[in-house]
C-alpha cells in the first residue's frame, strides 16, 4: 500500500511567528490523509540549483480542511526561499515520511527545544492523557499560547526572559514535575540529557532525531544514527533516521 506521496501543494498562508521562524499552512490531498504526529515531509526547492529536499517536521494536521502546517527556522537558502512563499504559490512536497510518535496512555512530558518544539504541537492534540508541555527556548517564545490549549505549559529560556532560566530539565526540576513517558524533539545535547534523566528515573523516553538527509525515504543511507543493537535492515549498528525514525526509543540509539 502506498503511504508516501509526491504532491504539488499550494500555500494557504504563511507568517513569521518569531525571528526567522515561519509558520506555513499547505493544502494537500494525499499527504494529510496519512500524516500523524512526529512525521515529517520533504519540501523541494523551486530553484534547480538546490537539489535536495528540506526535511521539515509536521507541526499540525487538519484532516477536515486537508491541510498541514509546517513551522521551520530559516537555516539556509532553501528555507529562506520557502519563507518567501505567499498564499497560492506552489511547492513540491513528498510525505508523510518517517514513523511518528508511538502514543502511550500514560502521564506524559511533551518536551520541545527550539525548532524541535513544532512537532510536539500535533502530538499534544493527538494525545488523550494527562500531559505537561515543557518548552525550551533561547529567548524569544513562539507557539507557547497554542500549546496552552492542550494542557499546562512550562517554559525554560536560556536568558531567563521567561519561565525558568536554563533548559527544559531545569524547568522540570524547578517545578517538581514527574511523568511516566517522555516525548521529545530538540537539539542533540537536550536529547542526550533527557535520555540520561529517563534512565535515572526509569521513564520510557521517545526522542525525535535529526540529521542531514538526501533522499528522505531510506535509500541513500545519508541520515543514519548509531543504534545499540544491530539494525535488521542495515545489518550494522546504524538506523536510518528518515525511515526507522525520526522517533526512537532513547535507549535504542547512541548519539
Amino acid at each position, binding site marked *: 500500500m*502506498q*503511504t*508516501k506521496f*509526491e504532491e504539488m501543494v499550494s500555500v494557504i498562508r504563511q507568517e513569521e511567528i518569531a525571528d526567522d521562524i515561519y509558520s506555513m499552512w499547505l493544502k494537500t490531498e494525499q499527504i494529510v490523509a496519512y500524516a500523524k504526529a512526529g512525521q515529517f515531509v520533504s519540501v*523541494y526547492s523551486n530553484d*534547480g*540549483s*538546490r*537539489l*535536495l*529536499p528540506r526535511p521539515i517536521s509536521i507541526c499540525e494536521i487538519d484532516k477536515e480542511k486537508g491541510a498541514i502546517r509546517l513551522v521551520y527556522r530559516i537555516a539556509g537558502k*532553501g528555507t529562506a526561499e520557502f519563507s518567501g512563499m505567499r498564499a497560492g504559490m506552489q511547492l513540491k512536497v*513528498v510525505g508523510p515520511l518517517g514513523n511518528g510518535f508511538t502514543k502511550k496512555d500514560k502521564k506524559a512530558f511533551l518536551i520541545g527545544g527550539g525548532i524541535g518544539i513544532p512537532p510536539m504541537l500535533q502530538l499534544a492534540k493527538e494525545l488523550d492523557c494527562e500531559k505537561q508541555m515543557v518548552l525550551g527556548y533561547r529567548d524569544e517564545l513562539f507557539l507557547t499560547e497554542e500549546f496552552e490549549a492542550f494542557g499546562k505549559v512550562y517554559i525554560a529560556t536560556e536568558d531567563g526572559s521567561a519561565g525558568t532560566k536554563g533548559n527544559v530539565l531545569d524547568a522540570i526540576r524547578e517545578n517538581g514535575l514527574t511523568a511516566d513517558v517522555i516525548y521529545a524533539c530538540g537539539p542533540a545535547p537536550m536529547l542526550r540529557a533527557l535520555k540520561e534523566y529517563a534512565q535515572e528515573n526509569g521513564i520510557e523516553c521517545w526522542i525525535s532525531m535529526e*540529521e*542531514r*538527509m*538526501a*533522499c*528522505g*525515504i*531510506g*535509500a*541513500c*543511507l*545519508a*541520515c*543514519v*544514527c548509531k543504534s545499540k543493537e544491530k539494525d535488521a*535492515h*542495515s*545489518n*550494522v*549498528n*546504524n538506523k536510518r533516521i528518515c*525511515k526507522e525514525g525520526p522517533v526512537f526509543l532513547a535507549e535504542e540509539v547512541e548519539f
Partner: protein
Amino acid sequence: MNMKVDLCGVTLKNPVMTASGTFGAGEEYSEFVDLNKLGAVVTKGVANVPWEGNPTPRVAEVYGGMLNAIGLQNPGIDLFIERDIPFLKQYDTKIIVNVCGHTTEEYVEVVKRLADQPVDMLEINISCPNVKEGGIAFGQNPKTVEDITREIKKYAAQPVIMKLSPNVTDITETARAAEAGGADALSLINTLTGMKIDINRRKFVLANKTGGMSGPAVHPVAVRMVYQTAQAVDIPIIGMGGIMNAEDAIEMILAGATAVSVGTANFTNPKVTEEIVEGIAAYMEKYQVNDIKELVGAVV
C-alpha cells in the same frame, strides 16, 4: 520504435538504469517508480561483509550538486542475496549488482558468491572516493585497474562492468586498462572529490571532510569523459553524472553511451527515472529515430 539496447549480450528494455548508491536495492523507490519500466536497477555497492560506513554528516548540498561520503555502508552479501535479490526478481527489469571491497580478495569473494545468483551483470566499484582502502585506490592507477579487472573476470559468471573514477588525469588510460583486463563494459563517471566548509563554524561540513560531488553541475564533465572514452575503447559505456532529465540522458547517449544511469536526480524527483524513459521516447518520436542504437555516439 525500438528502445531496447544490448549490453554485452544482456538486452535492456530501454537504456535507463539507476546509479549505484542512490537507489538502494529499489525497495524504497518502488513506492514512486514502477521498476518494471526501467532498463535495469543497479544496486548499492555490496561487500563480502556488512560495512558501517562513515560518520555523519554524510551529505551536503552544493550549488547545482551535492557531496556525499556515505562510505559504502552496506548489509553484506549474505543479507543482500537473501533479501534484496528476491525483491528485485519480482520485477521485469535487469539486475546489476554493484560490488565493493577493500582488497582484490574481498571483491572476488562477492563476485564468487553472486556466480549462481539470478543477477544479470556486475558493476565493480573501483572508484569510490570515500573509503580509505579499496575503491578509488584501485581506480586511479591503470596497472591496478587492469589487474583487478583480470582477477575478477576469472571468477565472474556475469558480464563485468568496471566503474571508473573521474579523479584522474586521463580517463582513457584507466578505460583502456579495464578493457585490456577483460572488462565487458565501463560505467562512468563516479563522483568528483569535493569539499565544503561551513564558514560560520569554520568546520568541514562532512564528517569525512571530503565527499564525492554529483548532480547537474558535473554533467558536462561526465559528457566529455564519456565522449573521450567512447573514442578510446570498443566496449560499451554506461554514461552517468548529473543526468536530471531526458535531455541530459540523450546528450550522454549522443556522446557515446549505450545506456545511462540516473543518480542524484532521484533525490530531487523520486519519479525521475520513469520520466526519463518517457522523455527519451518522446525525443525519438519527434526526430523520427526508429532505433535508439542510431543515437549512440551520433554526435558529429
